[in-house]
Each structure stands twice: as C-alpha cells, then as structure tokens.
C-alpha cells in the first residue's frame, strides 16, 4: 500500500502545480521518477517482509498481481486513452502471451529438469517471445481493422477474445487431427496444451524482481514513447484524426503501431501472469478479464498513466481484500457498481489527463 498512498500524494501535488507551472511535462517526469522509486521500495519491502515471515507468501502473490495489472492497464491506456481507439481485446493478447510462454517453459522445454542458471534466461525469453507473438497478432489484426473508422475495433476485439479462448479449448481436436496426418511429435505437444483442462504445473518463475523490472520497463517505455514524436501523433489521432491526416499522419500505420505495442505488453503481462498463477485455463482469459482492465482504466482516468497505475493497484488489492473477508462472490457486483459510480460522479476518471 506504500506506493499507493505515495502516488496519490504526488499526483495531487502535481495537479496543483501544473496549473500555475509553465512546464507541466517536466513536473510529470519527476513524479514518474517517484513512481519508479516507490515501486522498487515497495517490492523490496514486500520481499523482505515475506522473507522474515511477517507477511505470508500470499501477500507476495498479491503484489505480483498488482504489477501485472499495472502493465495491463497502462498498455490498454495506450490504445483506449492516448490513441483514442476502443479495444475490448486485452484478454485475448494476454492469453496469447500466457500460452506462448507456457508452451516454451512447460511443454517444449520442461524447465523443471534444467539447472537454475538455464531456467532464468528460458523464462525471460519465453515471456518476451509471448509478447512478440502478441505483437505480431495485434499487428495483423490491426492492419485491416484500424483502416476503418468507428467502433469496428471494439466489435472485432470482442470477437477475438472469444475466438482465442475457443481456439485454445479446441487444441485436443487439433491434436487428434495432427495424429491422423502422422505428425505425432507435434500432436503430442499440442495435446499438452490441454484444451479445456488448461495447463498445470507451470514453474512459478515470476518473482518480485522480474515483476517490478517489467512493470518499470513498461511504464518507462510507454512514457518515453508518449513524449516523443510518436506520442504526439497518437494524441493527435485521439483529438482530431482528420486534422492529423492533413498534417501528413498515416492514420493506419500509427494506429496499428500503438495497438501492436499495447498488445506486446499485454502478451508479456500474460506470460508473467501464467508463471505467477502456475495454472492457466482458457476461461482465465474471457471477456470479463478484458472488462476488468477497462474498469481499472476508466476508474483511473483515460490518458492518465498515473490513474492507470493507482487504479490497477488499488482495485487489485481491494478485490483480494474481498477474498480475505470472504466476499469474493461480490466481485461481479463491485465492478459494475464501481463503473456506475465513476460514470455518475467522475466521468473523467479519478485522475486528470497527463497528456
């Protein structure tokens, strides 16, 4: 909770100064530095407390989920907030990343048999490959869809969540088919994806170090891109795409770029998620998962990285808190109520736009 309270203070300080200050971007930069520092300190604190048995390992896991949800929400903000598109497909890319990385660490190279100094690079490579596969698929999906104006992206990404989930469930049938055409090695690998049974016994490689590292990396990368010519183009698409086109902006190219970069981080988040949970199932990545990130995003505020960070971490904590007090069946009541309250009381989200 340390980072949360710290973040809120910084943000309120930032908001009061940015009205009078002539350089909102420079104050923005220094508050992000405090986020980086805060996350590292919080990570250290949690891992120490767990090490000395003051907190149970359960709290460590909550911290990992907070990191993963920050990555997911911040990257969703890139599409839905900063670029002004509307995607409901973040869970699909998360699934793609999760299954790709598990395919590498659990099925193709069962890492339990490997010495530890090979396991770490294998894990890192698998998580990054998961992100890259999500990037590629995001790019291919985005290329035809983002040429269109309007809500097509929402419809297609909604469908994509179902397609990916159903496709994973059908891997048993695919394995049988491969067996019949005498590709038995491939068939055995596909068999292990497990269809509706999910993949179990995934090594729990995600630890606080990697989670904090990737979270910092994702925020730094997105923050830097937003403060470059690329970011200005994305913001211009959000504000007025006709004027942007007249300024020589290739709309499709830049929309696809932001969509694919966000998909990369969703895929990477999926890899971390799988290696935290140690058991994944197609239904982990259903439509509700996408909605979860949309709720975080709207709660924090569109086009506000701080909002995404604070909302993702506090909501993750809140939902785990519900589990602790045995109210987890109220989760799906809490989400809509939170959404309704935001829309009624603060339609812009809790935090102001940073850009």
């Amino acid at each position: 909770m340390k980072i949360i309270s710290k973040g809120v203070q910084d943000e309120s300080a930032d908001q009061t100064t940015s009205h009078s200050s002539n350089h909102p971007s420079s104050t923005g930069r220094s508050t992000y530095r405090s986020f980086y520092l805060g996350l590292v300190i919080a990570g250290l604190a949690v891992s120490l407390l767990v090490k000395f048995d003051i907190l149970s390992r359960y709290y460590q896991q909550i911290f990992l989920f907070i990191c993963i949800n920050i990555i997911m929400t911040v990257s969703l903000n890139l599409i839905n907030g900063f670029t002004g598109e509307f995607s409901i497909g973040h869970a699909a890319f998360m699934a793609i990343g999760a299954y790709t990385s598990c395919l590498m660490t659990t099925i193709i190279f069962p890492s339990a048999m490997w010495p530890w100094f090979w396991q770490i690079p294998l894990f890192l490579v698998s998580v990054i490959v998961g992100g890259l596969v999500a990037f590629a698929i995001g790019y291919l999906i985005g290329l035809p869809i983002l040429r269109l104006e309007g809500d097509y992206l929402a419809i297609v990404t909604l469908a994509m969540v179902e397609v990916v989930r159903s496709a994973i469930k059908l891997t048993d049938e695919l394995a049988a088919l491969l067996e019949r055409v005498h590709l038995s090695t491939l068939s055995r690998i596909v068999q292990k994806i497990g269809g509706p049974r999910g993949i179990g016994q995934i090594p729990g490689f995600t630890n606080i170090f990697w989670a904090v590292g990737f979270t910092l990396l994702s925020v730094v990368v997105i923050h830097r891109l937003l403060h470059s010519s690329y970011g200005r183009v994305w913001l211009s698409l959000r504000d007025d795409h006709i004027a942007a086109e007249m300024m020589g902006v290739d709309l499709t190219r830049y929309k696809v770029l932001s969509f694919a970069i966000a998909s990369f981080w969703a895929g990477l988040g999926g890899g971390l998620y799988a290696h935290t949970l140690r058991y994944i199932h197609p239904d982990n990545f259903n439509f509700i998962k996408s909605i979860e990130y949309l709720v975080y995003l709207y709660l924090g505020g569109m086009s506000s990285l701080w909002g995404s960070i604070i909302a993702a971490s506090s909501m993750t904590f809140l939902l785990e808190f519900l589990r602790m007090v045995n109210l987890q069946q109220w989760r799906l009541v809490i989400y809509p109520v939170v959404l309704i309250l935001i829309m009624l009381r603060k339609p812009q989200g809790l935090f102001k736009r940073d850009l």
Partner: protein
Amino acid sequence: MLLLVDSIHKSFGGLKAVSNFSTCINHGEIVSIIGPNGAGKTTIFNLLTGFYLPDGGTIQFHGQEIAGLKPHLIAAAGISRTFQNIRLFSRMTVLDNIRLAFHLQKKYNLMDALTKSTTFRKEEERITALSLSLLKTFDLTKEQQKLAQSLPYGLQRRVEIARALATGALLLLLDEPAAGMNRGETDELMSLIRWIRKEFPLTILLIEHQMRMIMEISERIIVLNFGEKIAEGTPEEIQKDPAVIDAYLGGHQDDD
C-alpha cells in the same frame, strides 16, 4: 506553375458538386475562390487534399500527379490546409500542435525514442526550437503551454495557420479564415496572410465570403456557381463581370 487542375468533376448521387473545374496556380500567388453557398468551394479543397476522390480529371502539383493519393501523402507532397470550423488538437498544448506538424521531418526511429539516444535528443531539440521560433513569429509565445481548446477564436485561427505552415507546405489552402471575425480581426488576418506570403515561399488559395477581404488581398479570383467556374480574373475584372453580378445579385439565386 505550382498547381495544374484539369477538368476535375465530382458528384454525390445525382448532385454535381464540381463539374469540369480547371485552373492553374503559379508560385507565390494569392488566389481566392468565391461563390454562393453550396457552389462547391469546399468540395474543391477536399478534392485537392485527397479527402474526396475526383470522379475524373487530373491534379498536378509540383509536376506530380496527386489525384487519387491518400491525404497524408498529399500533405507530405506539400499541400496543407485549414478548416472552416477550426480543427486543432484541442487537448494538446499549442506547442505540441505545432511540434506535431514537424513529425514528417523527424529523423529518428522508435528505438531512438525508447533509448533517448543523442539523435533523438538533437531532433527533439531542433523540432522544439523550430516550433518556438514559428510561434514567436506568430506572436503566440505566451500561449505555448496552453491547451489549444482554451484559446480564443482568433488565436485558434492563428495557431491553425502556423500549424499548416509547420508542415513545410508550398501551397496553403485557407477555408474561410475570416469566418466569424469582426472588422478589426479581419484586418489583422489580412496583414498576417500578406506577411506569411512574404516570409515563406508560399502560394495561397483561399475560400472566403467577406468581399472586402477578397478584393483587397487576392491577386486573382475564381468564381464558382453550381459547381462550375463562371469567371476568373483580377478583382477589378470580377467586379465588372456580368456573369458574377448575375450569380450574386441576379434573379435565379435560390441558395439557402
């Protein structure tokens, strides 16, 4: 010759918005397009900038055929425009509105932006310096950190023109720049247009309704009515042209 338009036409359903429009515009000219409402003036701008595909005819800009190109390629070729109802990036600062327009000139890639390489830093500094000097010449230095939507109307117009210039355009299309302006603001705008034409290697094509401004500023006037060109010439010639007088004052005028 900068722009050569040869018999372009465009219809929407049964309505002929522009029929057989031809003209040529030389380097450094200020040319106005006038005509009653619905005469097809903005349609011509939309055809020149690629927002509409012409049904036929050719448009040559700087020796290059641009009819059928996508708007962003036409913009990159050197045509820029402002809009009748101002289209700024409302939630970006004035400075970022201008800096965006330089994105075609940026010489760094994604990796440079991620690593903040020296190329990135130098390019960003160069773009910011260019933008600031442009804002200074437009007397907008004080507004640089304000959001575009917070500016008064007249200043928004000025930012929009500055932004169009920042793309490095050779041909500037101004769609009713004086719309909604009072006499004093219009005078200011006219001296601004004259001044940018002198300072930048620029050719200006504008649509306008305010006759006083048109007659004072244009070197040549093209008159449209019902999608067709009915006259073309110097302000003096146009004022005496019987077809123009007929279109503006004559009996069959029924525009809404």
